């Protein structure tokens, strides 16, 4: 019973982090039809920004805010300097480009921050709460993780559903040419989309790093899990990405808890293959009805 609870709670916590990362992938996929493989190293770079500040004596929260801001700026910069200039008539070009960025960011991080493992602080306790004489696996940092992702998702929902900027961003993603004719500055909206996605990616990077170790590759497994979560949700659906992330976090936690942690990576790929074979549109993806 206690193992079930522990497994479920740690799966949920992890699931929220995957959800955030998957959401970042989906936001970019929806607006620019690009799978951003550089998402993980971009988040990694911003985690180092936080770490440098924290090591210099600033509080965790200063580092946290600076990392999110750095993520926002980095996303905007990458879109403006690189993505915008690629000839996307062949869809493989931008994919290769983001893979190239993946390697570039890795090398930059190793060059600037070194490639050794460095411990990253957490703002809240990493020990489970004690209820009576049993320890529940939900930690203070776990609760913070869940709340932080919920706030980010809620903020994005409010932005996209209820503001003019959000409406312009959705319109630009769905139909750039018609949006331009309606006076929407589409380039600016796509840039903002990349910036916000990178911010959400940075958040997931900070949540993975908290209380653990960072090094230039620490986010790389999250690319796989985040991508699986996004595909699980249909790649086109932000709500699907969140649900896909939670589902994947739970499944992997159960595999790890009951079958063995060495099987987790394989389980993720089994889930990915099963979804692609049985429901290629994703569990939550409807029938494609785009670009009428």
């Amino acid at each position, binding site marked *: 019973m206690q193992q079930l609870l522990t497994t479920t709670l740690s799966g949920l916590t992890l699931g929220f982090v995957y959800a955030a990362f998957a959401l970042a992938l989906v936001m970019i996929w929806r607006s620019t039809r690009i799978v951003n493989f550089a998402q993980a190293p971009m988040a990694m770079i911003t985690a180092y920004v936080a770490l440098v500040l924290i090591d210099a004596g600033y509080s965790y929260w200063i580092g946290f805010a600076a990392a999110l801001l750095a993520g926002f700026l980095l996303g905007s910069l990458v879109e403006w300097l690189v993505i915008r200039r690629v000839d996307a008539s062949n869809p493989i070009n931008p994919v290769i480009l983001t893979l190239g960025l993946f390697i570039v960011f890795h090398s930059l991080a190793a060059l600037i921050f070194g490639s050794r493992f460095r411990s990253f602080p957490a703002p809240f306790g990493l020990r489970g709460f004690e209820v009576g004489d049993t320890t529940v696996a939900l930690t203070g940092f776990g609760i913070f993780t869940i709340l932080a992702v919920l706030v980010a998702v809620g903020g994005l929902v409010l932005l996209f559903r209820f503001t003019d900027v959000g409406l312009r961003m959705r319109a630009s993603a769905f139909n750039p040419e018609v949006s331009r*004719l*309606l006076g*929407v500055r589409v380039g600016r909206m796509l840039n903002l989309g990349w910036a916000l996605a990178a911010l959400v990616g940075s958040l997931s990077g900070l949540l993975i790093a908290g209380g653990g170790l960072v090094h230039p590759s620490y986010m790389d497994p999250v690319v796989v899990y985040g991508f699986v979560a996004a595909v699980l949700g249909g790649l086109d659906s932000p709500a699907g990405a969140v649900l896909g992330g939670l589902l994947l976090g739970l499944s992997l936690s159960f595999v790890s808890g009951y079958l063995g942690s060495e099987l987790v990576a394989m389980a993720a790929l089994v889930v990915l293959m099963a979804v692609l074979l049985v429901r290629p549109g994703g569990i939550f993806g409807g029938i494609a009805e785009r670009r009428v």
Partner: protein
Amino acid sequence: MTTLTVQGLTVDYGPVRALDGVGFEVPGGITAVLGANGAGKTTLLRTLSGLVPARAGTARLDATDLLRTPAEEMTRVGLAHVPEGRGVIAELTVEENLHLGALGARAARRGTASRFDLTRVYELFPVLGERSGQLAHTLSGGERQMLVVGRALLAEPSILLLDEPSLGLAPRVVAQIFALIRELVDRDGLTVLLAEQNARSALSIADRALVLGLGRVVADESAAALAGDDRLRHAYLGA
């Protein structure tokens, strides 16, 4: 009244010349742009609204140089373009589509002196009001056409470019929409450039007509005169 003046407009698609020295003036009212497939009607409209770059020539909307205005600024200089194939944003609701149109209006055109607000558009097209919360892809072809025209009006344009609004619509629906466009021109002083393959319907509401053939202007006269010109009709309009 708004005047559109086009001179020597030339557009190339790679080695293919799509428009070759097109010149005309639209002093107001409805000007039909007629011609067969590939004559350059859509290219003309897309060049005027900044989607296609011109190789040479000028295009002015009153004092504005259209060829130096980016497509996303067009609604702010008073030009609205309803592209071929309707261009509803299928994944947004009817009301979101309309709201997006209103956001494109230039600040000075919004507010008190507004000729077209949401209430007016819902009066003109009651069916849009009934379906305001629905996703646009659930609309019929005629309803989509009403949506894109209504959305364009909300930008408070002085000139409206319509590309093949009759495409794929039942004749009854075409007649209804065309009658409404005529009414907007007469009542609200809107200027319309109407590209159509359906010459008969277009000529029935147009004041003037421009006939394009292989990227050149082959006729530019009153709609009534063109309707009576059998030779031109046979040669270029297949009617």
